[in-house]
């Protein structure tokens, strides 16, 4: 194989292979069940950041509302699991057996109509992606057709986040309120609370995530991917090349939402409950930060970002429970100021040239320039 071929192969697949190896081989081998389950939980945010790479990194749409979609996906599966857990036998002490416990506490005597379809697993699986995508579609269609962009879009998504949180907390008879939907037990009869189940869920999560990375990569490598970059850099030019820019933005935003929905579902399965705190403004911003830290232009980098920030959060907070916010805040500021392309940017700038020098005998340093390096303004 020639150097050039080798290099292009390496630059295309090395990151993916390393990430797969890390997730499939290394983590299960060195981490105990508890930590592995934690990694699985972190990885469910990986789905969200993949979407953010697509819509923020490549298309320049910053959403401060990814928590909405993460939450919707999570609530969909949580509703299914809650119905499964609320058999008349399990809930015999309630005044209305057979409905979820929190409904009973709120004097509901029958299942609300929108819960009914969630008896069906097939419906639930579709809803996990379709509900977030549909909400994203309504939001994005209204905004992008009217050319709301940039900061405005970000603020509006944030406001929608606030609305949804207040609604979910306020409508507790239908949603479980601030407690969320808790005490989920089995998935199609399979107990999801055991360590073995957590291990299996971890591998399902990893497999799905890798598939999603490949999907994201397929989108980015297609002409669509280049159009997204074009939209980010010169939206008007794209419009005057005969494209309906809004459609592309709507599409990418819906894809990001569907990805987040899958992440939310994996989160619920691995954590065992769904809570409105995960939808709020703070978690939504944190998701953006995972993405920024890992590298908003790199699918692999962003997933690692989600892993690293969460792991750091856990470690810092275990070591310094009263001071860890300093470390987190400092980390965000540092990355934004000094490494705007995140860790992936660091790797591109330093590690890749070094590796090609060592292994491929490159004399000059410029690495195979990734197609897109500039940041969205």
């Amino acid at each position, binding site marked *: 194989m020639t150097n050039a071929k080798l290099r292009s192969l390496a630059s295309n697949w090395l990151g993916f292979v390393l990430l797969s190896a890390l997730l499939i081989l290394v983590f299960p081998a060195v981490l105990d069940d508890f930590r592995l389950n934690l990694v699985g939980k972190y990885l469910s945010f990986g789905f969200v950041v993949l979407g953010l790479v697509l819509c923020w990194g490549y298309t320049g749409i910053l959403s401060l509302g990814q928590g909405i979609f993460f939450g919707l996906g999570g609530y969909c599966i949580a509703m299914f699991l809650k119905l499964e857990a609320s058999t008349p036998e399990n809930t015999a002490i309630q005044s209305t057996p057979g409905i979820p416990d929190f409904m009973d506490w709120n004097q509901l005597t029958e299942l609300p109509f929108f819960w009914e379809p969630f008896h069906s697993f097939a419906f639930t699986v579709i809803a996990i992606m379709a509900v977030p995508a549909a909400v994203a579609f309504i939001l994005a269609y209204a905004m992008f057709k009217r050319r709301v962009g940039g900061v405005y879009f970000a603020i509006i998504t944030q406001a929608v986040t606030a609305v949804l949180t207040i609604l979910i907390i306020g409508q507790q008879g239908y949603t479980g309120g601030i407690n969320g939907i808790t005490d989920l037990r089995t998935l199609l009869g399979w107990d999801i609370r055991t360590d073995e189940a957590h291990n299996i869920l971890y591998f399902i999560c990893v497999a799905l995530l890798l598939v999603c990375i490949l999907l994201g990569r397929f989108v980015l490598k297609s002409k669509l991917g280049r159009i997204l970059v074009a939209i980010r850099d010169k939206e008007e030019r794209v419009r005057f090349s005969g494209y*309906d820019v809004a459609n592309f933005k709507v599409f990418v935003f819906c894809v990001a939402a569907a990805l987040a929905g899958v992440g939310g579902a994996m989160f619920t399965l691995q954590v065992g409950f769904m809570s409105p705190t995960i939808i709020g403004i703070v978690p939504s911003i944190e998701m953006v930060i995972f993405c920024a830290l890992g590298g908003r232009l790199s699918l692999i980098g962003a997933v690692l970002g989600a892993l690293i920030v969460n792991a750091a959060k856990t470690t810092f907070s275990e070591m310094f429970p009263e001071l860890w916010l300093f470390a987190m805040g400092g980390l965000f500021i540092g990355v934004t100021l000094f490494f705007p392309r995140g860790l992936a940017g660091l790797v591109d700038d330093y590690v890749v040239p070094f590796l090609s020098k060592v292994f491929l005998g490159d004399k000059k340093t410029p690495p195979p320039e990734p197609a897109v390096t500039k940041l969205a303004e």
Partner: protein
Amino acid sequence: MPHIGPVVESDILLALEGVTVSFDGFKAVNDLSLYIQKGELRVIIGPNGAGKTTVLDLICGRTKVSEGSIAFKDTEVTKLKEHEIVRLGIGRKFQNPSIYEDLTVLENLEISYPKGRGVFGALGFRRTAEVADRIDEIADMIFLKEHLNTKAEILSHGQKQWLEIGMLLIQDPELLMLDEPVAGMSVAERVKTAELLNRIIEGRAVIVIEHDMKFVESIAHRVTVLHQGKVLAEGRMDKIQEDPKVREVYLGH
């Protein structure tokens, strides 16, 4: 109506009639009528603030008219979206080169290629031999064949202008609108650009906005002079240059 010579209806490609646009009461374009025939090269000149760029904005839908109508090939375009107007066959080049700096020349041209314009079309788009040939052809025409894999951001200013023209050409529009295509170009580049323009005019109408009188002389067939949002004069370049009104507002100082 200050246009010169008889106009046969069927020859008209673009017709602006009684077009007015106002920004908070200020009429940037005021009751303007303008007709472009098929295959015509029209140069619009005028002092700063005359409304030249605004006219182009109106035609391509970037700015919406307050009153009046704009018809392209007998289709009213004032209510259409920008991309729909483009798809009708109107291409627009901006004053400052508007290209995708992060992409290569090849990718710039490929994005402009008029296939795969829907979301899923773009997802399934493949670079077939037909596409590659067309890109090659255009790249050759705009003097960038050697630079196909160069990132657009490192092209010279003139090359960027050409690339943008190429991005329009690949769509084969019937009406091409160029806003100051030679601004910031070297003398040699201007000569080449004039040559390019003369070549691409075949089979299509072109509207050019230009300040550079020498360049205008080298390409102009017919000139429209705008002043305060209205047509001040219209006709052949030599006639225009002698028009006292024009001399007063524009050439005179």
